[in-house]
């Protein structure tokens, strides 16, 4: 989700249609473009492909029709990214995106945080959120493999073409100086001119060269060793950051792939642990109502930080009554209730508004629920849906199911 969101932001303003207007004297197809004899389509077709690709990236980021949208994003993306590569220079930071899109197209990435997952939860509330399966770990390992081989190849290429000269000679110092020659290096100016200072300190340059080479060659160790992951991955990230700062070429789109090294599960667990269990909202719902169960399944999916305690007002009523003596069971079954951490009771639309602040995934829309007229419309819609549920086979139980 995050990877595709970054892709959307990065490629949103990229113009691919312009390549249709470039003379064929510049055209020299490479790799898969040459193998499949992919043509440069006419301008309207390229523009349409470009729009379609960006739309598919947005759908992939939101997780809507994820399997189809990620597969489409991979196919169109490979073509659109491949076309410019055949006009002059291959940008090495692009190919990894193709591999990442291929990996995600083959994965079940939509089972996690996605609109698809929310809709599935609404349709089948009884299903567990995401079962523990190799389905959800192989894409991460695949991207580890991709990055490891890329960096390892870069290290081997340096040894092959220059031997240890990258470390023992002034090669890096020369790169630093050339990078500050403006037009001399069309890849873009470095962010700072500190490279010139480093170039005057050959020992530092050689140490940096040795460090770079070592990190590149050692990244495959990160596939197997937790310690290597902690040390080498930040090392290669710093290396690319250093290139951008001191030499110019940017690895921004390459950097998207570092997301796969972030231990999201551990971060999630740590965040959940940091959540004060006493400051959680109580979500009281009618457990006998299908619509309420669907709502609960969706809210559970959104509750990534465990900020909400879900309680069935039918089955858990004795405990709820003890804890909140001012509440009545009939009211809780009639309308959804949320008892906030501060003890305030909100019902219906206001209950949704209260929990929206507890769910980070809803923070973007939470302020909208306070816009004038929205609460009035929201309360009416909630009332209409609640009335509808009673008419549509979800009658309000008249008494507690508990003894």
């Amino acid at each position, binding site marked *: 989700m995050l990877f595709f969101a970054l892709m959307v932001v990065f490629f949103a303003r990229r113009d691919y249609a312009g390549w249709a207007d470039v003379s064929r004297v510049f055209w020299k197809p490479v790799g898969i473009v040459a193998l499949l004899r992919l043509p440069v389509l006419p301008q309207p077709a390229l523009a349409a492909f470009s729009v379609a690709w960006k739309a598919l990236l947005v759908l992939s980021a939101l997780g809507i029709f994820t399997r189809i949208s990620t597969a489409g994003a991979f196919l169109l993306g490979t073509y659109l990214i491949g076309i410019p590569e055949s006009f002059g220079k291959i940008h090495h930071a692009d190919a990894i995106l193709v591999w990442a899109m291929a990996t995600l197209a083959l994965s079940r990435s939509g089972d996690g945080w996605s609109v698809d997952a929310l809709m599935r939860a609404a349709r089948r509330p009884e299903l567990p959120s995401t079962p523990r399966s*190799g389905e959800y770990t192989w894409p991460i390992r695949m991207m580890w493999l991709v990055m490891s081989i890329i*960096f390892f190849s*870069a290290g081997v*290429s340096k040894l092959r073409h220059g031997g240890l000269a990258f470390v023992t000679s002034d090669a890096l110092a020369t790169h630093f100086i050339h990078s500050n020659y403006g037009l001399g290096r069309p890849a873009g100016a470095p962010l700072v001119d500190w490279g010139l200072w480093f170039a005057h300190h050959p020992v530092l340059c050689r140490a940096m060269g040795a460090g770079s080479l070592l990190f590149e060659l050692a990244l495959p160790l990160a596939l197997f060793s937790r310690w290597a992951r902690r040390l080498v991955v930040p090392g290669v990230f710093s290396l690319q950051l250093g290139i951008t700062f001191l030499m110019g070429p940017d690895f921004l789109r390459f950097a998207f792939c570092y997301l796969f090294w972030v231990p999201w599960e551990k971060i999630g667990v740590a965040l959940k642990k940091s959540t004060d269990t006493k400051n959680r909202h109580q979500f009281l719902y009618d457990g006998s109502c299908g619509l309420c169960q669907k709502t609960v399944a969706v809210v559970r999916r959104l509750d990534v930080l465990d900020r909400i305690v879900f309680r069935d007002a039918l089955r858990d009523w004795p405990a709820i009554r003890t804890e909140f003596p001012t509440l009545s069971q009939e009211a809780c079954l009639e309308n959804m209730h949320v008892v906030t951490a501060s003890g305030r009771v909100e019902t219906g639309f206001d209950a949704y508004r209260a929990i929206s602040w507890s769910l980070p995934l809803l923070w973007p829309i939470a302020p909208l629920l306070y816009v004038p007229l929205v609460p009035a419309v929201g309360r009416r819609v909630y009332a209409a849906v609640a009335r509808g549920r009673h008419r549509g086979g979800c009658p309000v139980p008249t008494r507690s199911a508990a003894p």
Partner: protein
Amino acid sequence: MRIPRWLPVVLFGVAIALLWTIVEVVAPAAIRSAHSGRGPLALRNALSGRDVHPASHYVAVWRHRARPAAVAVTVVGLVAATLSSVAVRRRIARALVPRAGSPAASLPPPGRRAAVTCLALGFAGGSLIELAIDPPYRGEHWPFSQYRMYSETPRRSPLVGRRLFGVTAEDPAREIPLQGAYIRPFDGPRLAISFDRLDQAPDRERLLTAALADCLRRYELRRARGAHAGPRLEALRLYRLTWNVDDRASTRDSPGKELIWEVQASNPPTRSR
């Protein structure tokens, strides 16, 4: 007979030492000897053109080819030697088994496992082949690559590059470097490397004329659309710029300029596509 534990390690050490002695000492000595007309006939015959090249050339070629192979053999040998240890094998096996307390993760269905394996093997195999064949720059089999950026040892000075300049339709005319929005959809490196290729092509005159005319046409088209705020151009010039590099980059704005090609806007040639 029971093989002592240390024996494979010692044998490995001896073999690697032997390998590197051959690569670094024996073979270069044999090459030098053959170059001066001594040694085996086959080796002397292999050094074709030894009247032209010095012995150091053949030694350099040998080292360029033999060192990567020796490094690969050393790495493979190191892995094999490490895996010959029972303790290491046991530790790896232990690491691969899920911990007792952790919930077991189910495997994807066989069909998907096969697809994932194909993807992983396809990428790894393709990348390693690319690394082994080491195709020339721009001859890579994209999206595979051996990622050879910064792999060659650069010469400090001079720094040379082909760059495009526009001649403004003003009085007096100015020359402005064409980069950024002026050359879209190209970026600087793509355009520069394209001109490197075109300038070295057998029919360079036709190609450069077409290429410059195309750049000028797109520049003016985008200017008319408001895609950039550059001045109107009456000509485009391709220069070979040469910088005498100094350590403080003080000569960055004063390169030597040698005109390679020029196209006038008043008489644009026919496009070649």
